[in-house]
């Protein structure tokens, strides 16, 4: 059982406030979908929790099993059990996927993993994500299609097995088949030791990963929380209805 708690989180970038007090509690075994129009701060939440240097936390806290993540370096957050599947994962020429993953696994698990044992494990997840069998020897994300990159993020998630994963628009750029593969693989991970935050503005991925909680984020705040009924409402009516229902004004911005 693990717990991720975010209290009154305020985050800015270059002096401009993006998150204006986010509260969220996620327990392992739960899948929280955060939805909302473009430019409302969903990805900022993901990056700020992971510790991207561009973002500045001005107020609030984020606790993973009681440890304040915001006081940790990026790699310490990863070792504490947080994982971010990135929207735009970087390319790293000359570094093979398997070398990188073996080192990452060693860092996050604190244990040395034998080469043979690792290779078997890696091969298995490559198959499960239906990726090219030569993936281990290709350079990290170099020359990968958008879909391959996203799948590679999920593959890393499956190897590392963190306590919590944030999937930042993992569905964008995926075709129907890839979406299904990614969705099913993530779903299978959810258990009493793993919870997940899913950031998206489409409902498609939610056909494959059933969220236990749905939140709508507008203008840097979670304005509405509920269950799967919210997805259907957004699917049918977009986000405009929120303006009337909650009496708030917002404009869709750039992500």
């Amino acid at each position: 059982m693990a717990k991720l708690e975010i209290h009154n989180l305020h985050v800015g970038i270059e002096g401009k406030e993006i998150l204006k007090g986010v509260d969220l509690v996620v327990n392992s075994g739960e899948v929280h979908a955060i939805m909302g129009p473009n430019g409302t701060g969903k990805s900022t939440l993901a990056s700020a929790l992971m510790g991207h240097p561009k973002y500045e936390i001005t107020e609030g806290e984020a606790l993973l099993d009681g440890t304040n993540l915001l006081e940790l370096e990026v790699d310490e957050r990863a070792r504490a059990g947080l994982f971010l599947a990135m929207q735009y994962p970087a390319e790293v020429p000359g570094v093979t996927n398997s070398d990188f993953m073996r080192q990452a696994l060693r860092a996050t698990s604190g244990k040395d993993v034998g080469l043979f044992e690792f290779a078997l494990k890696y091969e298995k997840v490559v198959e499960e994500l239906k990726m090219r069998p030569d993936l281990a020897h290709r350079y990290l994300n170099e020359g990968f299609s958008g879909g391959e990159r996203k799948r590679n993020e999920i593959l890393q998630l499956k190897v590392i097995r963190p306590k919590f994963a944030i999937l930042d628009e993992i569905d964008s750029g995926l075709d129907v088949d890839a979406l299904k593969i990614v969705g099913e693989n993530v779903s299978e991970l959810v258990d009493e030791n793993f919870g997940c935050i899913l950031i998206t503005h489409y409902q498609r991925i939610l056909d494959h990963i059933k969220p236990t909680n749905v939140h709508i984020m507008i203008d840097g705040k979670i304005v509405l929380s509920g269950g799967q009924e919210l997805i259907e409402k957004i699917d049918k009516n977009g986000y405009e209805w929120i303006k009337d229902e909650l009496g708030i004004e917002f404009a869709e911005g750039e992500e």
Partner: protein
Amino acid sequence: MRDIVIEKQMVQTKLPKDFVYDNHTLTIPKNIAFQDPIKITILDDHNDSLKIVVSENTSIKIILEVKNDTLEASTYHLNLLAKKNSHVKYLLVSELKSKKGLVEHYFTAERDSKLDLLGGFVSDIIDAKMHVDLIGEGAEVKMRAVAVSSDENQQNIDVLIVHKAPNTIGDMTNIGIANKQGKIILNGVEKIEKGMKNANAFQTLKGIITSDQAIVEVNPILLIDEFDVKAGHGATIGKIEEDVLYYLRSRGLTQQEAEKLIINGFLKPIIDEIDDEPLKERFVNLVNSRI
């Protein structure tokens, strides 16, 4: 792999069949496609010259190791002549502890010859010149040089490709990685002389620093005296990309582990070409000790 060790201008090992060494010149026979690379080691002569002649129609991979632990001034004059239609893959590993090292390497490419040159510089204080003359039509050179410096190291690397014949191709990618208080100056010059139509000149220079005290200077220069050519150049300089570091760190690697992995990645094209396992291991260890 065949080893040739040269010490005090004498060949210490048995030469492969039909190889001739005479008066500082090693001649490799013609019309042979060598399957195995040969490794030439110049040992303990800190003032030496060597000319390698690859004869017509021969294809071969050569690894030249220049290694010296003396702190005294060390000077090497090296020369490679690629004769007509020869194909040469050539790797120079320079590992000098000298406080005043000089490695001057000339390459001459005759008609239709192809040179694939790699230089790995892990010396302490060195001036290195890699100078390629493309003298025959259809000659091609691909040059990749990497310098890694650290502590009080100072490396000046000059790479020059001169197009002295039409229809020649010169492509250089040079990378300088300066760590700690290391300093690297990387000059890449490509020159196309008048009348050398349809010559192609491309250069990419990349300078990377991993500390605030490290210095890298890159100077990409194209000198073109002919209209009918294709040429392009680019240079970048800076720290390791923040987003790449962030990505690797988000998977639990410390800043230092991530930097090492990235730098080893830059060097991978060179490291992969070192067929000699002990040399490869030494090169990798030396590079990593500098990061």
